[in-house]
């Protein structure tokens, strides 16, 4: 670890915190339906969309209608991606002549993109046409991100409102989120990325003759426009197989730094939106503080582990950290930091190969996802995931003193706690359940690339990433098989929607409740005690659930490595 390395980490955190408040202010205005500086341009488009689709923007929806609308929207999104992948061979914008994608891979990829996971069983440049990348993947990057954000906003409204039956209008929220937040940022971001060197072209792959006379086919495409939203929307599905490690997806140290910022900014700003909507910004800062504590701890361990290298490297006298699967322009610090950020959020883009990380360095991304990606988290998904833990923490605190727990003026009762538990239990069911099946099913075992405990970690990581809707991988695992295409799709689907529905039920139930003013017996939820309590609940839940699995994977691998065992 170096001083300059830590300085980069501190600078990163400082900028995220500095952007939280102004962006939170702007997003609150967007979701309250107020005018913004972009309204003169965007309002006519917005009104036009409502007009052709028959949406009455004044009419709000009950939480159930809101949820059904969201689900219908995703059925359509699924059909678009699946159809494009199956038919891409006969559709335009296919200069590389990609053939139709197989049924199971198309199914997996369609589920993967509507759930904001972006698991890459496909290899972008070797599988997909430009049309599939743009209309299929880029559009769903926008819409699954917008969906995550508006669901979080609906839950926030549940806390903020009193004695109301509705939580907002899904169609209005999703349109405003796309037009006023995602699209403007992406336009500026795309141009920045092209300036840094990311291609943006519809032309053919380039045929080059290298200095030594060999032929090199260089894949290009409309990359920058997709990279912008894949980072900002915490989607993470790469244009290329190597994702953000590919020089065309992430050419410079600056592009890398800004991409890392773009993963966190919207998620962090949502904590401020929460604070503003419930009438006390300090409530939002307290939640960001919980996230910050867990984040910095993860970065420290991962950076230390990667900088220390492996016993294999040390035995050969190779210093400078574990550079296997990392790029020179990022080095150890920017690779470790990126890995922690991308798994703390549900992004899943990678600028280094997690499969080649040290045992402990690779365990941090795994833990981040298993805690439910509540450290800033996926856009929206991180906040509603975190609020579920807050409900549990408040419940635990209430049990200690024997009072009905309350949070930001709302009584937390049996229904909310049950729903929160239901949502939280989905993750271990999908991760541990499917991992257990995969390690005894011979065809699944054959997909492991590494032997020994690392092979188990590859499988555990795959289901963790899928269920948590992350999309990063220990990519050695051969995931494009019938077994993994179907089981991972089920983990992604259940991990996303079986968490959303209980969260929305909580939103509806809270919105209907009366608001009660704080009294002397109210547990203050803006101070250090609250932050410590929530961190504790998260770690205890995650630790009790996943420690045994981690012990079989990365922990035993670390011990084996120190004992000099290779597999």
């Amino acid at each position: 670890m170096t001083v300059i390395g830590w300085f980069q980490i501190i600078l990163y955190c400082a900028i995220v915190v500095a952007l939280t408040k102004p962006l939170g202010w702007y997003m609150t205005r967007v979701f309250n339906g107020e005018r913004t500086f972009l309204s003169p341009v965007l309002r006519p488009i917005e009104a036009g969309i409502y007009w052709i689709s028959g949406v009455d923007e004044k009419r709000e929806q009950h939480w159930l209608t809101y949820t059904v609308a969201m689900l219908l929207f995703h059925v359509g999104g699924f059909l678009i991606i699946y159809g494009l992948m199956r038919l891409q061979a006969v559709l335009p914008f296919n200069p590389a002549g990609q053939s139709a994608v197989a049924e199971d891979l198309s199914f997996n990829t369609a589920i993967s993109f509507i759930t904001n996971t972006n698991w890459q069983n496909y290899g972008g440049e070797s599988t997909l046409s430009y049309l599939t990348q743009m209309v299929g993947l880029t559009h769903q990057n926008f819409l699954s991100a917008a969906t995550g954000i508006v669901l979080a906003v609906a839950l926030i409204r549940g806390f903020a409102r009193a004695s109301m039956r509705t939580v907002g209008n899904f169609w209005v929220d999703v349109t405003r989120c796309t037009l006023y937040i995602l699209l403007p940022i992406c336009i500026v971001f795309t141009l920045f990325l092209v300036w840094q060197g990311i291609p943006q072209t519809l032309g053919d792959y380039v045929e080059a003759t290298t200095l030594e006379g060999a032929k090199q086919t260089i894949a290009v495409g409309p990359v920058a426009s997709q990279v912008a939203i894949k980072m900002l929307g915490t989607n993470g599905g790469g244009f290329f197989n190597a994702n953000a490690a590919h020089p065309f997806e992430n050419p410079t140290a600056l592009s890398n730094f800004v991409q890392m910022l773009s993963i966190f900014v919207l998620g962090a700003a949502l904590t401020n939106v929460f604070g503003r909507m419930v009438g006390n910004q300090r409530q939002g800062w307290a939640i960001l503080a919980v996230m910050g504590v867990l984040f910095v701890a993860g970065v420290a361990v991962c950076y230390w582990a990667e900088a220390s290298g492996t016993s294999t490297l040390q035995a050969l006298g190779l210093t400078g950290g574990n550079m296997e699967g990392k790029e020179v322009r990022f080095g150890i610090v920017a690779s470790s930091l990126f890995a922690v950020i991308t798994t703390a959020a549900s992004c899943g883009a990678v600028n280094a190969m997690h499969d080649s990380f040290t045992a402990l360095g690779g365990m941090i991304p795994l833990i981040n996802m298993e805690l439910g990606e509540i450290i800033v988290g996926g856009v929206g998904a991180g906040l509603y995931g975190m609020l579920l833990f807050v409900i549990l923490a408040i419940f635990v605190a209430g049990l200690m003193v024997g009072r009905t727990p309350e949070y930001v003026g709302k009584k937390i009762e049996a229904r909310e706690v049950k729903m929160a538990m239901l949502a939280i239990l989905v993750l271990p069911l999908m991760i541990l359940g499917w991992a257990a099946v995969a390690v005894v099913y011979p065809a699944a075992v054959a997909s492991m690339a590494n032997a020994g405990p690392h092979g188990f970690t590859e499988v555990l990581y795959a289901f963790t990433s899928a269920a948590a809707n992350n999309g990063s991988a220990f990519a050695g695992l051969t995931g494009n098989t019938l077994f993994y295409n179907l089981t991972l799709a089920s983990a992604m689907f259940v991990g996303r929607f079986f968490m959303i529905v209980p969260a929305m039920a909580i939103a509806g139930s809270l919105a209907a409740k009366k608001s009660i003013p704080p009294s002397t017996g109210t547990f203050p939820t803006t101070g250090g005690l609250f932050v410590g309590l929530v961190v504790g609940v998260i770690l205890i839940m995650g630790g009790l659930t996943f420690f045994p699995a981690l012990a079989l994977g990365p922990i035993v691998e670390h011990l084996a490595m120190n004992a000099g065992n290779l597999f």
Partner: protein
Amino acid sequence: MLREIRPAIVLLLALTAITGLAYPLAMTGIAGALFPVQAQGSLIEKDGKVVGSALIGQEFKDDRYFHGRPSATLAPDPNDSTKTVSAPYNAANSGGSNLGPTSKALADRLKEDVDKLKAENPNAAVPVDLVTTSASGLDPDISPEAAQFQVPRVAKARNLPEDQVRQLVTASTEGRLLGLLGEPRINVLALNLALDRMAAK
């Protein structure tokens, strides 16, 4: 509930048209006008022919050139399309080795490469980036140490004084952005092009 069906179809199509077609196509037009070189892939031409991209590494095996990092990219096996074969710096199929920290295959590969490099230059420590594969398999850069390490070999192969080659390496080194972000590095293709130019003089 039924009245949600129309927006589910129409609004989805409208937003798809905006984000999936209008946005990428408009960006392609604007980016192509503002940054024509980058938008096409930062291609480098020599004598009217494309020799590569400034951002994409390529394979160098000749002693007269500086070598990049090992690359783990693959290509379909020409004899059996269900299998793959090693194809370093395949810029149409990026990827890493994905070998883990306790992989025996990785340990064997590292040892073999370290021994080879030690034989080539026994006077310097082997730089770690010169024996580890990159994440993309297309890393265009090596560390300054990795370039300095290769100077004796390149100078000998080209009959140039070592100092002259060393100066070129130093001049080709890019530092951290604002002294802070990223890592010091050398673009291998750019260095080799500069080397060819110097040798031609």
